[in-house]
């Protein structure tokens, strides 16, 4: 079996599945249950200065799919509402009992060096393996000048990271907020400040839904609501892109990344790792299903790695980064067209109406006069290979996108004669 163990910026863990800083890692009781279930590490829910904040009642809300499966999850909880002393004591005890698991302590403090200088030795004394700087929390804490209020200003990110590097020997992971235009800016700032790694994404500002009778958004706190932080499967595409942006940015390339955002199974994790993540953090999936999900995540990842001949995570880590590029470097001469497998087709007509109404009118609906049976066929001459029919088809594998040899060599937009600004050059 493949070896799932990792050494992430100096932090060792038996597997890359960590629980993100969140309610599941708020106290020893939960963390011990997580370790018993097999999680490789945890990022302890964010500690701050005493007195701890107080939470409101009614804290979460969600976006649902057709079968009430949770697609997106929203929360307005603050950092730990337990005392610093109690948390530090529990961290010490748990680390002692579970020495092979990674325990990273998430921290959020005002932008004052002394505050960080005071807390870091106490965290180090617990035996924890590293710290994560919470620059991402988008709700509540930014109103107090912390969380994403820091993460949105690259200069602050660099400054606080530098203070931490100065006051502790522990690896410093900087957690980034996605509520920003260009994720590369704070990542570069973190690197400039000496960060050992970045973790992303934190949650996205969100309002999931409204109670239209009461005219108030969820979660409803006594007749009013506020925006929360969005996570769960819905945010995975945003997270994957941001991870890829950092992984392929020449300035941050090689900086260890802890991938976060909508990871619920082994395949999600493999995708983050393929785009450059060295470990992954999970929260929503565990909150919805319990800690036991790590069992299937580990088993699935191991078996997939075995089937591909990958012995360690390093064997495929970042392997998809080289294939993630700017639009202008895509091959203008590549062509694919849809193919409908008539044996699998259930004749629902979804591909037809999608293409006919909203795309390129490239699917024929053929009606057998005698039986009334509908048959759907791709018009190969008109199909632009957009994938819409494949996406809307309810039968997996019925519609496939087939590459069509054009006999033409690679040519990107910068070389394309149709581009008025083409830099037509011989490729080396």
């Amino acid at each position: 079996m493949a070896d799932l163990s990792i050494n992430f910026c100096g932090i060792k863990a038996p597997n890359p599945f960590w629980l993100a800083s969140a309610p599941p890692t708020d106290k020893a009781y939960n963390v011990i249950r997580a370790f018993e279930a097999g999680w490789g590490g945890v990022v302890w829910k964010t500690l701050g200065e005493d007195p701890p904040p107080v939470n409101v009642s009614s804290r979460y809300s969600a976006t649902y799919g057709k079968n009430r499966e949770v697609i997106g999850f929203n929360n307005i909880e603050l950092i730990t509402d337990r005392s610093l002393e109690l948390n530090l004591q529990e961290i010490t005890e748990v680390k002692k009992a579970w020495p092979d698991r990674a325990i990273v302590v998430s921290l959020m403090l005002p932008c004052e060096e002394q505050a960080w200088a005071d807390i870091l030795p106490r965290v180090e004394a617990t035996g924890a393996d590293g710290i994560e700087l919470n620059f991402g929390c988008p709700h509540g804490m930014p109103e107090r000048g912390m969380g994403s209020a820091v993460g949105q200003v690259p200069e602050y990110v660099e400054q606080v990271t530098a203070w931490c590097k100065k006051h502790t020997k522990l690896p410093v992971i900087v957690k980034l907020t996605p509520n920003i235009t260009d994720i590369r800016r704070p990542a570069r700032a973190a690197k400039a400040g000496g960060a050992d790694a970045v973790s992303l994404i934190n949650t996205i500002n969100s309002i999931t839904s409204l109670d239209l009778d009461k005219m108030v958004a969820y979660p409803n706190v006594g007749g009013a609501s506020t925006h929360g932080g969005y996570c769960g499967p819905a945010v995975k595409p945003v997270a994957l892109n941001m991870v890829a942006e950092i992984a392929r940015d020449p300035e941050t390339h090689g900086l260890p990344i802890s991938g976060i955002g909508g990871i619920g199974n082994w395949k999600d994790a493999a995708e983050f790792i393929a785009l450059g993540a060295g470990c992954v953090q999970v929260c929503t999936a565990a909150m919805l299903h319990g800690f036991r999900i790590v069992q299937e995540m580990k088993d699935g990842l191991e078996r997939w790695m075995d089937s591909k001949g990958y012995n360690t995570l390093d064997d495929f880590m970042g392997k998809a980064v080289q294939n993630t590029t700017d639009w202008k470097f895509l091959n203008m001469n590549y062509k694919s067209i849809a193919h409908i497998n008539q044996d699998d087709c259930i004749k629902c007509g979804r591909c037809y109406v999608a293409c006919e109404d909203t795309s390129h009118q490239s699917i024929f609906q053929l009606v057998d006069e005698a039986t009334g049976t509908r048959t759907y066929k791709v018009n190969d001459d008109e199909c632009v290979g957009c994938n819409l029919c494949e996406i809307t088809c309810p039968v997996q594998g019925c519609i496939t996108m087939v590459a069509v040899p054009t006999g033409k060599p690679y040519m990107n937009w910068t070389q394309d004669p149709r581009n008025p600004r083409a830099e037509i050059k011989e490729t080396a």
Partner: protein
Amino acid sequence: MIESLKYIPQPKATNEELAGHFTDLAPPLNARQAAIESSRCLYCYDAPCTRICPTSIDVASFIRNIHEKNVNGAAVTILQQNILGGSCSRVCPTEVLCEDACVRNHDAEGQPVKIGLLQRFALDNATLDGHPFKRAPSTGKKIAVVGAGPAGLSCAHRLAMLGNDVVIFEAHDKSGGLNEYGIAKYKLTDNFAQKEVDFLLGIGGIEVRHGQKLGDNVHLKELHAQYDAVFLGLGLGASRALGLTGEDAPGLMAAVEYIAELRQADDLSKLPVPRRAIVIGAGNTAIDMAVQIQRLGAEEVTMVYRRGFDAMSATHHEQDIAKANQVRMLTWAQPQQVLLDEAGRVRGMRFERTALDGARMVGTGLTFELQADAVFKAIGQAMESAALADPLAAMLKRDGDKIHVDDAFRTILPGIYAGGDCVSLGQDLTVQAVEHGKRAAMAIHSDIQAKKGAAKWPT
């Protein structure tokens, strides 16, 4: 009181116990089940379920409305195509219509969306504020509809909606036709047929006159003279005869007559229930008869059919209901003689084995006898000859004994239309009768308007 069976004992069970055997055959979906089931619909384009539905209900649309918690929208989507959508959701053979056509019935899944139950969910749970349809401005026209069954009611409703006034002439004491008198009790529970009629009449402009029987105290010639048009939704009032000696003996009766008594009975324990019963036939009425008599307490119920299972007009689903109710099904045997006891009452029946000779079914000469306390014939219905006996009615062109109509449900006599089981189109399904009535109403309306030279109702 059923004259023919008056000497047969009544069940030992109480009315309450027996009523427990006639609750919903297919219990309704609750909100959670409806949410799960509606999520399975793929919202097909040009959907096969809609194409196969005789009334062309936009199934994908109403199911999407259910899923989006717009139950009233779902209900109106159904009702605008099929005003008797509530009874159709209970009695339609969906297994050969929409649910057979459902793309999720494909080999790979084999689990169609439960369209019938979802339709029922929408109509049962809608909270409509009054009747959902408004009448168009009055046309000043008055149309006679004969028969308050599904075809007549559907026709009357659409005519009223288009701005016409309607008088329905109905022979029975209650409206509803077979929904009230003919469908198995466990398919239309809780007095649903009357509730649906009340809802339908809520549009206004429809007067129902009961005790009015065509060929008896109402005549086509008069209706034709007095009204702007006439729609005949007569149904098939006569049960086909076996053509055997002893057919009128006590103990032998038409299944539809027994079912009508059962449906109207206030006290099920007062019905005569034979210990051993034979049901001749293999249509849905035969199954309804066999299953209901079994549920009333008959010990041995045997359905006898002259051909094999594949030729039965009862669907596989219906056959399964019979099997689940311990009804014995005997195929390849035809009635030969009614056996009578000394008192001249039915004591059983002699059957002749049948077989196929090429494509033809023939008697083999081999016979056997079945003992029974009662025999119910369910070998099909026919037109009541008296209904069309007056001189004008006699001029109607017929296909066999059914009334000939064109594809807009016009008979050959101008101003006279017909639909439902009494015409030659279709397979005598409730949902087809509803469509006949609806389309006949549109033809009547447009023919009258064309004659008047006025603009047609916008479609």
